[in-house]
């Protein structure tokens, strides 16, 4: 019995992955940040733990005391809100400006037209009149910045009400792209940085949405008060030319 108890204690006390800082990042950074982190690890020998999800959820979790050391938001307002509420010590820095794109499954529909990027939406609405429901995917506008931008684009084009029966919402923009490329979907409004990734470019066709059609997607990052040396080093590294080049390769504007 005593041995059993001892074994239990050892079991409980087993170290839980101590050390590597946890980075919370908007899911549209999935590929760009993985590559950046890999490069950073090669150069410094320090590993990072990347957590991808919707910026709104991370903003809530950080306010509730989640142990993230660095937060890369897809929308700067979440970082500013954390600062105003006193959860972080400063306003952080802008690291990229994101772009919205229309993405659809490859080869199934007429190819997207750069001069009329919302053609897919119009065609889906027309198909509904013929009794065919082709889904339009957007990220949840409630907590995903790319969902807010998608909503603005549809509203400005006067398509918000007519697409209501067609819309499906992803929890974050990464899931939204999955929905957009699924069999039942006509396509979706997603992050340009995701469709550019090699694993997805062969499955999708896409076209950029003009930046003037929605509020700019300023992406801001901030260190939390728990940030250690490694997180601080990565924060500085992300602002240097090498990281900026990686971000540009994934379709972000970094000027």
């Amino acid at each position, binding site marked *: 019995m005593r041995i059993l108890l001892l074994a239990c204690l050892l079991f409980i006390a087993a170290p839980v992955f101590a050390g*590597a800082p946890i980075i919370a990042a908007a899911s549209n950074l999935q590929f760009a940040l993985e590559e950046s982190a890999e490069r950073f690890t090669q150069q410094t020998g320090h590993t990072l733990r990347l957590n991808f999800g919707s910026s709104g959820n991370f903003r809530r*979790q950080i306010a509730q*005391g989640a142990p993230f050391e660095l937060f890369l938001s897809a929308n700067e307002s979440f970082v500013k809100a954390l600062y105003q509420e006193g959860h972080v010590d400063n306003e952080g820095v802008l690291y990229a400006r994101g772009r919205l794109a229309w993405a659809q499954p490859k080869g199934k529909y007429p190819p997207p037209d750069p001069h009329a990027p919302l053609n897919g939406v119009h065609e889906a609405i027309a198909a509904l009149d013929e009794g065919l429901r082709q889904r339009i995917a957007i990220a949840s506008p409630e907590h995903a910045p790319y969902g807010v931008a998608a909503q603005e684009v549809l509203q400005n084009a006067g398509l918000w009400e007519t697409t209501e029966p067609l819309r499906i919402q992803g929890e974050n923009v990464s899931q939204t792209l999955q929905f957009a490329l699924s069999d039942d979907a006509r396509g979706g409004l997603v992050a340009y940085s995701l469709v550019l990734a090699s*694993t997805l470019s062969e499955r999708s066709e896409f076209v950029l949405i003009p930046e003037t059609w929605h509020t700019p997607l300023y992406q801001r990052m901030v260190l939390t008060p728990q940030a250690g040396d490694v997180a601080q080093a990565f924060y500085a590294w992300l602002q240097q030319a090498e990281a900026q080049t990686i971000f540009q390769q994934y379709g972000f504007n970094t000027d």
Partner: protein
Amino acid sequence: MDWTALSVSLRLAGLTCLFLLPIGVWLGRTLATAHFRGKGLCEALVALPLVLPPTVLGFYLLQQFGRDAPLGSMWASFTGGGLNFTFSGILLASLIANLPFAIQPIQRAFENVPTNLREAAWCSGLSPWQTFLRIELPLVWPGILSAVALTFAHTLGEFGVILMVGGAIDGETRTLAIAIYDRVQAFDEQGAARMSALLLLVSLTTLGLVYGLAGRRRWVRG
């Protein structure tokens, strides 16, 4: 394969079983043998996690675990840390979510032990403890085994509660079930498929082992 997530899952499942086993035996036996006011309510509370959507349970726990909430602040005053987004937090959540899986099979097993068998043992001079250890426990053993296996397998698969309370932190609260979700989000379907297959295999083996053992026992006795 995400070995870190697998080890978090196994640790969570193992510890959940360890802590729930004594609680399950005690509460299961009490509910099976005692008659008291409010027993129905007790049984309903134990069964509640079965029907409650995980998001509802997760939402309440997230609130209760916060540093400003009574439970969270009490925990912080003992340990100095919070409960949300920690392994301790998901363990506590897992203990609550698994109550029905740990208690119900044991309660059913104790209900099948005839009262006069217990009384006969007492008349033969065995103390209540000896009766429990030497007469009752061997009879309810398959029930306890089922409880452990169900708790273990269910913890491995638990998703909603853990995600809400744990926040999917690598090496701490990201279990295998959540790692599968993350892999799908990262468009790594092969990775997700491998982990799913492992989870399927472990779950099936666990359940098969238990039903096999329980079945053979029934067959021997019958």
